[in-house]
């Protein structure tokens, strides 16, 4: 696509719109990380498009220096699908939240992943409706007291990663808003992946659900509660790198290194192993089991937008060049 790699600075991806998230909102670090990530992906700025739905997170495109479309609640993947199919050269970032993407727009999200259209989906998960001022969302823990659940929510939450894998996603990663470096790395990897990339970001809503992810995102406790996955590397975590994950009769268990247990006993992460990915998503439950973050799953599969182009080209080749006039006079016609 790009004849020459253009050197961009972070500033190229900002604009002069005043950013209006609440002070302390996790969205600021995500915005900054994406602006930085885009300087490293090697794409032309004019070919990058941000598409969002409705919600706090969905204000995102207004703050980017790229082409940006703020759409309607939940529909960003559908609009983005049309943009990508109209112009497959474009690089798309879908920005959605747990209410926008998992609730009102759940249908579009799963079908986008099923089709494997080549775009990136960033899910800002703060487990709450922020813009409508504090109602439980489809990722809120059962029992949470919110404005619409004063006696505790009785909704069971989604396991977002399992939903994504069940939908056939070909790239699944997670990151946290307090680790911009990791976040940026994951964004670059998501962009490099061909097909739908689903990157979930645990993001803090400082007003309505403050510190909900704290155990695995705060700088003091995250090392002991996050399992940073790296393909081909043993699953080690902890501030002192002294804990690991072991397979025990089909079950994953946390083990303390030393005392007869070494790195060789630990599971080695294989991002192409769907069963392992599923297990990690099942088990992640800090502080009982660390939150799996990083590139959890990746595979190559048929890409919808490429197949659409290929099919049209194949039919054109088979039937030869034609215009509407050919169609008009094709089949049964008669002269008077």
């Amino acid at each position, binding site marked *: 696509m790009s004849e020459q790699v253009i050197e961009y600075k972070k500033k190229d991806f900002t604009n002069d719109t005043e950013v209006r998230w609440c002070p302390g909102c996790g969205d600021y670090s995500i915005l900054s990380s994406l602006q930085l990530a885009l300087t490293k992906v090697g794409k032309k700025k004019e070919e990058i498009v941000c598409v969002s739905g409705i919600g706090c997170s969905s204000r995102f495109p207004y703050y980017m220096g790229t082409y940006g479309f703020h759409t309607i609640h939940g529909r960003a993947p559908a609009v983005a699908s049309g943009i990508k199919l109209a112009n497959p050269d474009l690089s798309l970032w879908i920005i959605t939240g747990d209410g926008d993407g998992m609730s009102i727009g759940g249908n579009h999200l799963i079908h986008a992943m099923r089709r494997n259209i080549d775009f990136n989906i960033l899910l800002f998960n703060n487990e709450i409706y922020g813009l409508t001022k504090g109602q439980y969302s489809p990722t809120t823990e059962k029992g949470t007291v919110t404005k619409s659940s004063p006696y505790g929510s009785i909704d069971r939450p989604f396991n977002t990663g399992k939903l994504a894998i069940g939908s056939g996603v070909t790239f699944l990663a997670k990151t946290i808003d307090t680790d911009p470096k990791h976040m940026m790395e994951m964004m670059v990897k998501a962009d490099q992946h061909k097909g739908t990339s689903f990157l979930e970001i645990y993001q803090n809503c400082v007003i309505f659900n403050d510190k909900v992810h704290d155990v695995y995102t705060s700088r003091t406790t995250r090392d002991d509660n996050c399992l940073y996955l790296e393909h081909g590397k043993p699953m080690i975590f902890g501030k002192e790198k002294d804990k690991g994950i072991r397979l025990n009769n089909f079950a994953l268990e946390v083990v303390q290194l030393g005392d007869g247990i070494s790195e060789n006993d630990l599971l080695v992460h294989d991002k192409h192993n769907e069963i392992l990915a599923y297990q990690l998503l099942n088990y992640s439950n800090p502080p009982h089991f660390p939150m799996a973050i990083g590139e959890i799953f990746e595979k190559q599969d048929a890409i919808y937008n490429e197949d659409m182009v290929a099919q049209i080209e194949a039919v054109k080749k088979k039937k030869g060049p034609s215009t509407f006039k050919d169609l008009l006079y094709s089949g*049964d016609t008669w002269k008077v």
Partner: protein
Amino acid sequence: MTAQIHESIVIRFSGDSGDGMQLTGTQFSNTSAVMGNDIATFPDYPSEIRAPQGTIAGVSGFQVHFGSTEIFTPGDDVDMLVAMNPAALKANLEALKIGGHIIVNIDAFNKVNLSKAGYENNPLETGELSKYTVIHAPITSQTIAALADVEIDNKSKDRCKNFYALGLTYFFYNRNLETTIAWIEDKFKKNKLMIDANILALKAGRNFAETSEVIVSTYSVPAAVIAPGTYRQINGNQATAWGLIKAAESAGLELFLGSYPITPATDILHELAKQKQLGVKTFQAEDEIAGICSAIGASCAGDLGVTTSSGPGIALKCEAIGLAISYEIPLVIVNVQRGGPSTGLPTKTEQADLNQALYGRNGEAPIVVVAASRPSNCFHMAYEASRIALEHMTPVMLLTDGYIANGTEPWKLPDLDVEYPAIKTRMIVAENENPETTKWTQRDEKTLARKWIVPGMKGFEYQIGGLEKDILKGNVSHNPLNHQKMSDLREKKIALVAENIPLQTLEGEDSGDLLVVSWGGTYGSVLMAVKRLQQKGIKVSHMHMHYIYPMPKNVGDIFSKFKKIIVPELNKGQLKDLINAKYPVQATGFSKMQGLSFKISELEEAFYNALKEGKLL
């Protein structure tokens, strides 16, 4: 035996949904078209794919109206009914003219079938059909006998009986067999036995009619005086699809359809999905909302974005239409109307979604609304809807309906270069523009349409959303006066479309006692009714509207020259209400809500009564 000459004939083929009646009707229609008649057809099929065999619910019909004068409708009353079983007879008898002909397949009139159709006694024996001329034909047994030497199984032989029935009608109406034989030979070119079987059945039916003397006279419908040109048969949905393709080609754009299957609009998706050699992109979305949202996305990226649906699907798209209004992007929304509310009557026609098209959104959200009048006109109006959308940067709703979507007629192929020239879109040529001075918010003085700038154009990056925009800069604005200005602008922008559409025309004198105003698929019936009254010397004119919102500029002048206005509609008076709200007139309505189009006779009566009430007779 000499043939009686008729100006036009209506024949309805009717049988079980597995009896091949759609095919039989199509063959009759094609043959008549090739023989020089003008034609209109309409299929009538059950909403269940395979309703129980032999029951009324499973009856499938196909009506052909062919004539030696111009034919505008598939016909009111039926001259000949072909009934393949008792249920088909029972379901269609009411449509038959007194004195009309019935060809019945007597083999199917057994106890079981009679009971399934709800007959206690065999109507062929009770005398209840004495008002009609009934031709008893052993269609099933004769077909099997005729195919005795063909080496196919009995089930396959049985399935040839529709060609036998067709052969009967070909004799009756002096049709020649060549067109159908050529079709059979092409259709079954890989199966010689089926070619032989179907041709034998066709000829056997014709020969039975000729030799058995069950038919005492035949009928002839001479060729019509038809404008010279190349013709083809087309139905409304196919014409809509083709109009969209032509518009995209004229605009130099790729066509993108985002759609979700729904009766009776799905055939547009089918048709466009076939035309990949022309670069057409079809996206069968996960739901109606994704259908329109993907089309909006495609338009944002520089395609001609289109979504197609019917009333219930349009209801789901309303929020997204508002987004397209807010974005000010070209978008074509096709509503092939059916009976409502809710799921309503999926396979029946109605024109009750006009209010939905005009008002079905939150906020002040005007769009352009146009409507097609007959099957072939769907081509023109689909092109027009696209042209307006592209020239004015606005969503346009095209209304058709089940009646014209499935109805067919011969279409004189247009001179494309003359009638459908290039469409100049608002898209900028990035290389010729300066990003510092060219902005998407800049508007054309005449139309107020903004510039169309799409991702990929270097230096023009902008952000847009459904939040209110500053009228000059385009960024988010909650300023009270700005919202007033933007609301006024959106209204004016649509109003200005009136400068870019043809003036309203009339059929008849431009002043008189009664003006009949119609829109959509009722065109043919209304025109015929008006013509009949005109022939009686009544001062009545017909104004059929293709452009409903905004209306052509001269509509008010036309209204002022008539003493009375009547608006017949297949709804409760939606266009009538719009006219009365916009113009200083008191139009009356004539409403029908039966899932059926108007009969010419009932319109004639309604117009006559309106004249009497107004003391104009």
